[in-house]
């Protein structure tokens, strides 16, 4: 489903389905001029969350970490994905599929720091 959705966006709009890029490019100070497809794609994503909350609430969980930790994590994810030009979807799914070396390096990097952080955070909590 994730692969098909990414392919549909590429077929329709010729764009990479990278969530951090789709969202980040809407934000100031220099928002992208092509807002319509970005807002529509994000709207669909949010609608899936709303729908799941109604029909299968157990499929979506709260973070296992405390709220302050989640907020710190959010800021780091926002900053890092924009600095590194992508997240799990853009580099992970689309980039690896296109055999992009940049994406391969990015995925290897974030999987490593992600695994180390999850291990350390699990050990101290």
């Amino acid at each position, binding site marked *: 489903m994730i692969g098909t959705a990414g392919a549909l966006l590429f077929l329709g*709009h010729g764009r990479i389905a990278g969530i951090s890029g789709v969202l980040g490019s809407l934000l100031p100070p220099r928002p992208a001029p092509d807002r*319509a497809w970005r807002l529509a794609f994000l709207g669909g994503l949010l609608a*899936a969350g709303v729908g799941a909350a109604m029909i299968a609430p157990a499929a979506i969980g709260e*973070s296992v970490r405390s709220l302050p930790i989640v*907020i710190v994590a959010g800021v780091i994810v926002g900053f*890092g994905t924009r600095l590194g030009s992508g997240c799990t979807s853009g580099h992970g799914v689309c980039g*690896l599929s296109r055999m992009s070396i940049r994406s391969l390096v990015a995925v290897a990097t974030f999987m490593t720091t992600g695994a180390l952080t999850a291990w350390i955070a699990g050990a101290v909590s």
Partner: protein
Amino acid sequence: MTVVATRGRRHDALSVVVAAVAGALFGAGLIVSGMAQPARVIGFLDVSRGWDPSLAFVMGGAVVIYALAFRWIRRGRTAPWFDGRFHLPTRADIDGSLLAGAALFGIGWGLGGLCPGPGLVAAASGATTGMAFVAAMVVGMLLQHLSARR
């Protein structure tokens, strides 16, 4: 004139519908596969405590499907349905920003168990941590944009 204008508007409306369907399908895929459950994501990232590798298959499956479709679309078409051309990343250099950004993203992912897509889905579902994560993520994105402008 009127006919052309109507067709243009219809074209615009259809393009928005396709993007929305792609987004909804993407979100549904994240939910069905367990990516919107931070506990499972952390169980996948943390190999030291009863590693759950199932999410690797989710990512692998998505990569295979996307890779096949991507090739098929690129071979069969010179442009997408609603745009004059395909917009593909052109950079090929491995620079410090890519490495530092990816490293930071991994730290945030391992810390909260949420990445951008599942974060948005969780926020929309009404999960408190999801909403806090997305608000913080937007702040982080804005901070990066402001720091890059200098």
